[in-house]
């Protein structure tokens, strides 16, 4: 069967990289020309998608989820039991949240998420992944030297804190639930969401700043 022909895929990759113009912007423009000329998608739909990711889909969604888990114990239970359902209940479901797991930081446990084999990420709830998450350096290092990686992000862990690294090797996706910082008693969900950083939901940030 040609369709699952691994060696043919390798051969096509070699041809494409060798013969396309080297500028990635031109490569993408070429692909866009092909799919729009063929009528596989309307350019306006691509524009809408870009707008969607620019304005609506981003870590503010995940931050709302985390903030709600801090203020509503029942929602927190749901989030930890079935994070997919929890984000669905807030309308944040979609790409790569079908099998979502929420993992809790505690005073003695830190969680860090990576995908060493590609760059799996819960897009619909966290938006586009940061470039570093997709970098070879992060993918290679997070599982082997998580504490050095964390230090580069400014996170220094005490010796009493263990690190659990979640390598997203199947279709499960992970979101870290950071600890609610002291000094936020009585804050409402929007106030709380504003202090939840994207990195804290991946695990490259830990102690949230209440400024």
């Amino acid at each position, binding site marked *: *069967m040609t*369709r*699952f022909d*691994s060696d*043919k*895929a*390798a051969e*096509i*990759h070699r041809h*494409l*990289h060798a013969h396309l113009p080297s500028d*990635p912007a031109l490569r*993408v423009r070429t*692909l866009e*020309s*092909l*799919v729009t000329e*063929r*009528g*596989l*998608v*309307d350019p*306006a*739909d*691509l524009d*809408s*998608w*870009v*707008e*969607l*990711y620019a304005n609506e889909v981003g870590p503010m969604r995940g931050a709302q989820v985390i903030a709600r888990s801090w203020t509503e114990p029942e929602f927190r239970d749901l989030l930890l039991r079935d994070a997919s359902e929890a984000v669905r209940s807030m309308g944040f479901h*979609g*790409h790569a949240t*079908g*099998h979502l797991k929420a993992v809790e930081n505690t005073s003695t446990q830190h969680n860090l998420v990576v995908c*060493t*084999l*590609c760059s799996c990420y819960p897009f*619909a709830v966290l*938006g*586009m992944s*940061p*470039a*570093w998450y997709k*970098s*070879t350096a992060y*993918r*290679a290092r997070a*599982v*082997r030297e*998580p*504490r050095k990686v964390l230090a*580069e*992000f400014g996170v220094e862990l005490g010796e009493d804190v*263990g690190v659990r*690294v979640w*390598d997203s*090797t*199947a279709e*499960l996706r992970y979101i870290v639930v950071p600890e609610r910082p002291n000094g936020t008693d009585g804050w409402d969900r929007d106030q709380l969401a504003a202090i939840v950083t994207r990195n804290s939901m991946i695990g490259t940030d830990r102690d949230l700043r209440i400024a």
Partner: protein
Amino acid sequence: MDTIHDLGGVEGFGAIDTKAPGFSHDWERRSWAIAKNTTASSGTLDFWRHSLERMEPATYLSISYFEKWCLNNMTQFILAGDFTLEEVLSGRTDQRHQPNAPSSLQGARARLKANEVFFDRQIDAPPLFAVGDSVVTREYIDARHTRLARYARGKSGTIRAHHGAHVFADAAAVGDERAEHLYTVEFSARTLWGSSANPRDSVTLDLWESYFVQP
């Protein structure tokens, strides 16, 4: 296949650029939008991944995520017969069709939600392992595409969760979308990396049943 993509534990990549945003260029946004709004007429997600892994190793390490996606989507279209290599290299196709009418931002929202795909399946076979069990991963993997990362082969771990059966990546990558029981397995960092690792640290992977040495 043990291709270059299997980066876990490989050393020498240097510091992480912790400030880089998700998108730096418009062409990256376009690459992403094309990837999520078009699809080749045949294939599986796992074959898509495997095809990306077949990029030349030097290229794989040299180019960015969104350029990889662009090249791999071109490759999928060619393999599926949707476009010829010549069409892609020339950037021109003479078969023109009318797309569906554009659907506005509301349509994009709907497409994003519709992208919530499920990989769990009902199977008859009962799970062979339970939470708390010790398992040993296989030392050798012959599949073309696998999710048993090289750094976690031949290692002892503990099952922390059972997720029912999920579509088995190794099989789906060759078009066989059968399911197997899927587990989250925790390995101590010392088991993976030796005594220099912190004894408090661990790594979990989500692994299918046939990745384990059978009981």
